[in-house]
């Protein structure tokens, strides 16, 4: 794959974030999964990062030289799965 076609590959399919957008975020100083998420929305979609975060972590390692053990998990917040808002609204206290 040449540089241009590498850049076009979709990394986060839920939020349609390309490799180029993630590389740019890292070039601008993003150094954690949360940084990349806040700048690009990668990991914020339907699957909550299940598909893309290992790739984003590999890109942080390759591009910014951050060791895998230094890359903390993305901050986990409820809901862990897609749930209907109507169900939440009906929740007892």
């Amino acid at each position, binding site marked *: 794959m040449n540089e241009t076609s590498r850049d076009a590959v979709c990394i986060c399919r839920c939020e349609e974030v390309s490799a180029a957008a993630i590389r740019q975020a890292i070039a601008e100083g993003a150094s954690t999964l949360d940084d990349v998420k806040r700048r690009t929305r990668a990991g914020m979609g339907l699957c909550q990062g299940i598909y893309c975060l290992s*790739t984003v972590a590999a890109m942080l390692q390759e591009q910014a030289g951050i060791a895998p053990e230094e890359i903390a*998990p993305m901050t986990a917040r409820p809901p862990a799965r897609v749930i209907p808002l109507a169900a939440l609204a009906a929740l007892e206290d």
Partner: protein
Amino acid sequence: MSQADVAIVGAGPAGCAAALAAAEAGARVVLLDEQPGVGGQLRWRVAPVHGLAPELEGLPGVRAAAALAERLAAAGVEVRSGTVAWGLFEDNVLGLVAGEAATTLRAAHVIVASGSTDRVEPFHGWTLPGVLTARAAQIFLHIHRVLPGRQIVVVGSGAEADEVAHDLAAAGAEVVARAAGTDQLQASGDGGVAEVQIGEQAYAADTIVLALGRQPDPALALQARVATGYDAAAGGQVPLRDARLATSQPGLSVVGDAAGLVTLAEGWAEGRLAGLVAAGADDAAIAAAQDALEHRRSPERAATVARLRAAAGA
């Protein structure tokens, strides 16, 4: 809000073992799973299972899952299938949704046994319809009983790749090529996979099955802010645990793949230990379960566990 002594999230091998052990030790146990039945990965695997309970030895996964459902019922475990545990809050309160109905459950002890997800790597064309993971392909085959495609490229080189390639061929699909990884892989087609390139070689194929291994899915434990550590052999960042599989948060354990990738037999043994601990079983029973777990660990896996445990103590 309902109450339980022990609530277990995930009814795979580790979660089922935890539920059976906790019920045996006298606890009121609720076992939750988002899928419509118990067994986790056993539900969509037909390969024989080894190292679980003696009466399950050698059964195809799907049969072992059915046998587990009977054992859980006989043991008095409250099984809630089709129930999504989406949040873990203060005081071990779980947020649950079943269909449109939301409820909460508080448990003295929560055991997260939420398993793993299949790893995915992006490549050119990976978002086309027709690209799926190994477990998705097995769910097509063994639960829905349909072929995910006719001409299939299987990507990956581990035992899981061999298993899914075997299952696909046995079900009547044609495995047109195997690729070791995604480096040289490209897919193209109009509205779906039609051609797959591996390096210079092109194949007519309608489906790509990615068997690139698993990654732990401990999302609920991470919500509770448990301490984590990185270990490549465990599959990445995983919750740190002590010798009784307890995390840094009181009343919260993690077992099975969610705490680092394990074999079926090791996951089962972890579940049993955590279930006994959560139910307050006596020290002799817990020591025996710890012994059984040690025996099911390979030397490499024992070294991984030792590294992670040292990190938990630091």
